[in-house]
């Protein structure tokens, strides 16, 4: 499913339009590509700024950055690339804004463990066993939240109902649990 594709898309991929932009230097092509991801960029900015006007300004500023950067970098996946650019822009802006104190360690979302489609059944079984051992080692709240969310497939809201944790708490326990779980599994594999 294409998440943030613009309705104005003419069927050409982002990368094809970028290629055409490199050849023609027609800023309209770059604008068309960027418009496909405007929503994503806006909400990423809103997630950090918590301010609509600032987020809108950031969207336009990122587009200006884009004009300079797109020629200097090889872009294989524009959506991921522009997300990184947008997020970095917002984080840099917040860092420059001395009035705002942001705990970036809390804000960052860790990438999930990459799938390993090429690994065989035995390896996969080993990883699952390692994961079960690591889950048992997690702090109680993280362990409960991880088990309810990943194993029993409960949503945040259900978890709050079942556990009495706050919504933010559930999200935090899941995120921290994922991070600890990842570190634990990597440690188990090293051993």
């Amino acid at each position: 499913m294409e998440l943030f594709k613009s309705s104005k898309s003419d069927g050409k991929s982002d990368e094809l339009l970028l290629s055409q932009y490199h050849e023609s230097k027609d800023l309209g092509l770059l604008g068309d590509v960027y418009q496909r991801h405007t929503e994503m960029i806006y909400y990423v900015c809103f997630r950090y700024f918590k301010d609509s006007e600032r987020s809108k300004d950031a969207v336009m500023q990122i587009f200006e950055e884009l004009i300079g950067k797109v020629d200097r970098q090889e872009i294989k996946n524009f959506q991921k690339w522009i997300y990184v650019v947008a997020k970095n822009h917002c984080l840099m802006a917040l860092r420059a804004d001395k009035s705002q104190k942001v705990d970036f360690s809390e804000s960052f979302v860790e990438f999930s463990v990459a799938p390993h489609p090429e690994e065989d059944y035995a390896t996969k079984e080993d990883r699952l066993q390692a994961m079960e051992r690591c889950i048992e080692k997690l702090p109680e709240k993280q362990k409960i939240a991880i088990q309810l969310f990943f194993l029993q497939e409960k949503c945040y809201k259900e978890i709050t109902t079942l556990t009495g944790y706050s919504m933010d708490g559930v999200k935090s326990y899941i995120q921290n649990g994922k991070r600890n779980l990842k570190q634990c599994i990597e440690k188990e594999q090293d051993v």
Partner: protein
Amino acid sequence: MYNRPDIAQLRRYVRGELSPQQMHEVERAAEADESLMDVLLGIEAEHAQGLTHDVIPELQQRIQQRSHVPARRTSSYLYRWIGLAASLLIVFGIGIYVFMQPESVQQQIAQRIPPSEPSNTMRDTTSSSSEDNTILDREEALPTKDHETKLAYSNVEASASNRLKNSDAARQAALDTIPIQIIPSNAEELVSMSLRDDHSTLASRNSAPPMQDRISMLSARAGRPMRQSNELQSVSLQDVKSITTGIIIDHQTQKPIAGALIRDQEMNTLAKTDSTGRFIVGSTNEKPVLTIQSNGFETADHVAEGAMRIALKRAPNGAATEPRTARDVSAKRLKSRPAIGSQAYQLYVNNLAKTSALGAGEVTLLFGINAQGRPIGITIKKSGGKKRDKEAIKILENGPNWIKGTDDELAEWTVQF
């Protein structure tokens, strides 16, 4: 694996419109995709602030405007340059039309006058020397005729110059814009200049006499001795009351006549038209009578009226017009006359007389004219009664200026009550 939710699904998630299973799918997708999680958190933050306005169309419009600006700018610059070029072209064209075209056209007309056209130079009538015979031989083909002098108002043709007449500002404007040639009032120099210009080729063939001798000779040819040069007055700029400009053209061909002489009969000042047929002459009278002479054309008298356009009629074939010499002019006796013309003056005087309500009657007055053109020494030649006599004198004293005649006789005017 979980499907990646779209923005609408994320919004429904935030609004709590999804089932627990759907919510879990969204959350699992967000947990697996950092960018999706950021977006989800952004939508949740927006929802928490109660913002319902969809800003995305506005943003896309701004991006559209920004990303298509260069093309529009190019177009805008193009139109701007075209506009600027067009403006410059218009200004340049107007400039050429105003400052260049009239003169250049007239110069072209002057240059196109064929050799068969009548000569515009003064013609000598009294010379009998061999040199003069040579000149006469050259000019014999030109029509000659005793001209009939006529005094008439200028037959100024309809032209822009009409709007300028009788206006000091217009006269100044004419001075500023019309190419003119001011001829010194010294008669010998004038005549010599005229003849020297027109016969320079012939003069070059012959041994040129000393300049002073030549001037004396030309003066003699002009039919008057050297001392007659004193008859021509030098007009000081301080004494100039009127400046008359104009153009002399051939009535038949409408082409300008170069070298035509314009003589102020009162002051005996001379001017000569330039190559475009234009002239300028100053006078101590407000309405001087100008005599225009040119070989091959009938001599005409005109009352000066600011910017003039005078068309000279050609003399009949076989008859050459003899231009007037200073002696001719001095020999002509002109009566004193109203500067504004007899008809206009009569209308003015009689209207005032009738408004005085002194009853019907006539008063004939005799008077002199001073240098300023004012009636002086008014006496009663024929009385119409004391009151009418007194009123008639008052009307003349306060009336328009006169032009003093050369007949040295008192002016006479009858006021009709």
